[in-house]
């Protein structure tokens, strides 16, 4: 079987279960392709030798009842992996080797998958282009010098380039859905509380969620099945009845009510995005869904709210990096001097900027004006969704206000970079599930995504809508392997 890396996760699982392929053959194929793809810079840490060894051991005693039997997988370097360096894309964690495993990755290994390595990401997941990583930017396999989105840019690039059959990312303000949209792949941000945050390097704890990134909707549902579990190690993990997302997946969405929020028609949105959205509405109708106009009046306030809440939580989460217990240390004349130099040299510019914003909005005299205000507006944003869901089952929007941009194009203007997340951020603030599916191309041939937002805990419904629309859209990713010499 030649084109192993072209197969979807479901095909690979099927082929391993029916013994047409061994885990070693599959792992070797993805390792070889990864080795030929160094130019994309998707890996921070490679663990190929161990992966091949684990695959061999799997084949000696295969357990074919597992959901991911002997499937190799690289994961975002924000998930702590026991005994394998975990950097969060930062110099300050350059040498950090966790003594514990994140619950989400543990769930994946428990189902038989094999770790191939750790994927590049924006430093502490703060970025929309993977350019803030200490380990350098990632190339989008769609075109040279194009960003893969962020912060899960190594993950999106690796899935699109077929260096891993599937992967996981994390999404605080769009970090799964925006890179999925930029690379023509599928990314799901689950409901807050669906996947455990235990062992994920923390950015903004009231917003962070892990989720699957895949070539197609079915694979995404299969992985969501594995990673979504109640976990007592995460105090905000929610004990609700989870579906068997893969098994229950259906294209029958007849009569589903899908809302179109008028506030997402933002000023200066390219016509291509507007056209894509209109096409999406037609696809949804073709699938038997009913389209209903809705209003989410506080949409325009979501980004300013996010840029108070997320940095505030980040400044407090990142206080732990002090050069004492783990990670990088710069020498100083005294303890305070050591702290200040360690953090100044160990964190990159974007992370420092966000720590400073967060510290400022939480500082004495400003807390009410900024942080409390933002929490109140966050409530209004959530109320908008609650009201909308009295009338509709799901909401359809574009995933991003543009296609992928060039490396370096937005690095000097933080606000223009932040605007990338305008359609994804409200979903995190309200704690809802959202999925981005590839839905078309712009004039340059770059992929564009549509986002389907669901009610809390209603992942199955948005997966079903995505599954039905995916068939109508019939998207083809134009990847030429230009980086393979």
């Amino acid at each position, binding site marked *: 079987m030649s084109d192993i890396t072209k197969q979807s996760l479901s095909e690979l699982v099927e082929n391993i279960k029916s013994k047409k392929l061994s885990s070693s053959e599959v792992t070797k194929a993805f390792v070889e392709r990864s080795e030929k793809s160094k130019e994309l810079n998707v890996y921070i840490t490679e663990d190929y030798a161990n992966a091949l060894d684990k695959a061999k051991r799997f084949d000696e005693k295969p357990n074919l009842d597992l959901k991911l039997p002997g499937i190799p997988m690289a994961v975002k370097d924000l998930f702590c992996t026991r005994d394998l360096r975990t950097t969060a894309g930062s110099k300050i964690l350059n040498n950090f080797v966790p003594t514990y495993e994140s619950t989400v990755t543990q769930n994946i290994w428990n189902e038989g998958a094999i770790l191939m390595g750790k994927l590049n990401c924006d430093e502490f997941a703060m970025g929309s282009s993977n350019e803030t990583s200490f380990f350098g930017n990632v190339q989008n396999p769609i075109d040279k010098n194009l960003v893969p989105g962020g912060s899960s840019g190594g993950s999106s690039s690796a899935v699109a380039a077929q260096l891993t059959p599937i992967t996981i990312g994390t999404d605080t303000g769009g970090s799964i859905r925006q890179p999925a949209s930029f690379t023509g792949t599928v990314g799901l941000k689950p409901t*807050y509380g669906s996947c455990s945050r235990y062992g994920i390097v923390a950015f903004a704890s009231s917003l962070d969620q892990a989720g699957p990134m895949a070539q197609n909707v079915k694979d995404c549902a299969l992985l969501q099945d594995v990673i979504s579990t109640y976990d007592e190690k995460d105090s905000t993990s929610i004990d609700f009845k989870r579906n068997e997302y893969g098994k229950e997946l259906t294209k029958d969405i007849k009569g589903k009510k899908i809302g179109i929020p008028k506030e997402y028609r933002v000023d200066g949105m390219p016509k291509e995005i507007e056209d894509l959205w209109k096409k999406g509405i037609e696809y949804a109708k073709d699938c038997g869904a009913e389209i209903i106009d809705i209003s989410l009046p506080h949409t325009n306030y979501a980004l300013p709210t996010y840029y108070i809440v997320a940095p505030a939580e980040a400044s407090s989460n990142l206080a732990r990096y002090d050069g*004492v217990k783990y990670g990088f240390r710069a020498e100083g004349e*005294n303890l305070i001097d050591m702290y200040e130099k360690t953090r100044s040299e160990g964190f990159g510019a974007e992370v420092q900027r966000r720590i400073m914003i967060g510290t400022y909005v939480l500082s004495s005299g400003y807390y009410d004006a900024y942080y409390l205000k933002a929490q109140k507006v*966050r409530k209004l944003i959530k109320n908008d969704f609650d009201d909308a869901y009295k009338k509709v089952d799901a909401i359809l929007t574009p995933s991003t206000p543009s296609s992928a941009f060039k490396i370096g194009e937005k690095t000097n203007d933080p606000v223009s970079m932040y605007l990338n997340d305008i359609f994804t951020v409200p979903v995190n603030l309200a704690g809802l599930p959202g999925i981005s599916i590839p839905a078309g191309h712009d004039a340059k041939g770059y992929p564009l995504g549509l986002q389907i937002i669901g009610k809390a805990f209603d992942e199955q419904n948005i997966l079903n809508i995505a599954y039905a629309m995916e068939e109508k859209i019939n998207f083809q990713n134009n990847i030429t392997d230009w980086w393979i010499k």
Partner: protein
Amino acid sequence: MSIDLKTIKHISKLSRISVDEKKAEKLAGDLNSIFDFIEKLNELKTDNVEPLTSVAETTLKLRSDEVKSKNLRDQVIKNSPKENEDYFVVPKVIE
């Protein structure tokens, strides 16, 4: 609203991040443009709105207080940039 260099230096102290003049100026510029953007929230009246602190509407679960993890002292200490036997080492604090 404007964040001046004095404020930047104050925040940098609170953040435990050292900044020199050049970096302070760059940060002042960036933070001012970000706060201009954030000021939009003042358009909204929120006097009677309850702040949303968590979207997870659950009460914290209780669990029994028992040690579950193994003793990982050696591995934990190994991650430290500077250690002496069983201790983390920091610059001298008390003269």
